[in-house]
């Protein structure tokens, strides 16, 4: 995965949760970072806004680390491009 993208995700997690970015590693779970399910919603919201994508409801429960976002981001971006091409939402 691109370093640039993971850096961006780390920055978003650190900024929304107000924790030092060096604590936010690829595989540190949000639970380990002291975050709860509502914090995870906040992170998903920030990721959606930053990349202009829609994260499906059924995938939100799997978002527990920066890596889990980075690995799926490509698909979400492609899905969004598909929506735009089809004239769908967003």
């Amino acid at each position, binding site marked *: 995965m691109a370093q640039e993208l993971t850096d961006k995700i780390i920055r978003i997690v650190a900024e929304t949760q*107000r924790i030092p970015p060096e604590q936010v590693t690829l595989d540190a779970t949000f639970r380990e970072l002291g975050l709860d399910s509502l914090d995870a919603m906040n992170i998903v919201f920030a990721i959606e806004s930053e990349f202009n994508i829609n994260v499906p409801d059924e995938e939100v429960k799997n978002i527990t680390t920066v890596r889990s976002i980075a690995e799926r981001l490509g698909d979400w971006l492609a899905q969004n491009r598909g929506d735009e091409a089809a004239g769908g939402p967003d």
Partner: protein
Amino acid sequence: MPQRRVAVTGVGIVCALGQNQAEVFEALRQGRPGIGPLTGIPPGQLRFGKGAQVQDFPPRGALSAKDLDYLDRFAQFVAVAAREALGDSGLELTADLRRRTAIVLGSSIGGEASHEAAFVDLYKLERGRLHPFTIPRVMPNAGVSRVSMEYGITGPAWTVSTACSSSNHAIGQAFWLVRHGLAEAALAGGSEAPFSLGMLKGWEALRVVSDDTCRPFSADRRGMILGEGGAVLVLEPLEAALARGARIHAEVAGFGMSSDAHHITQPSVEGPAAAMQAALEDAGVAAEAVGYINAHGTGTRLNDPTECAAIRMVFGDHAARLAVSSTKSMHGHALGAAGALEAAITVMALERGLLPPTANFTRPDPECDLDVIPNEPRPAQPEYALSNSFAFGGLNAVLALRRRS
């Protein structure tokens, strides 16, 4: 069921006059209103330009950055006021007491400004998604929940929403819980943060907001000035408070409610009179023992003479010997927080032996011919005081407070 006397052992207050008891009382003592030009509202969009807003809130360090994400301003007010009240009370919240402490707070509109901001995003900026904290910030019980979580208080807790009577209904219910042994302590009061453009436009449309200042009972009054803030009282059984050597600020002696069954915005004389009468009866006190009334006193054409007539109906000849003031002339009409601010102020007035004035008073109105303490505070030590709240929709709530004896 045996009745216990109920003491006020802690007071916390945030309003346009200050962000703690000492600051607020100093402004009241000086008769210095906290009314000024509206800030944070785009200019040129309203027919009125003044409000009683809390400046520089929250103070640096009072709430964490994450708290500010989760909490609308109305809940921030109550978080800060509850902290002052609990600190002031010196009450030790043991594990047992946390289970038997109640929290009852009033709010008319909850996180209205957050609601409005979300809808601006959605409808005006056409953003496809809203922030996930929208609902937690908007819900009117957010203040109660915050206080419960901050102190680990697990007893009965709820929010009361009866427009401008919300906080008096909240304090009255908390008082009854403590009086009747259903709670061993209570945090009671309320908060409101109504300064969002949509809410102000709603008030503008009712044509009850003054374009200069708030002059309750004055012949040239032009309406209310909106205010904001929050206040919390710590209530305990008097005996328990005395046993632990607590400072007793005052007692809550009685609570009375009524509804007008009359009109959605116009007050009646009979409804408020019935609530005042009920508060006196609940306190078991004669009308002649009351020396001060903190009036609802909004400064509108309609409220003030109606309230004066209600006071005359209840107190008869004694009305001429009563002191009545509206502190809304200084802290504005804080809607669902009004009862909390005014109960806190009445408690402080009884304790300090100084009745706050009706500020901005210019000339008497024959329809409001009571002693309204114009412009200058008055040293006095009444044994009992009432604090009146009357809501749109005709829901009335009156507290009877007693000077510590």
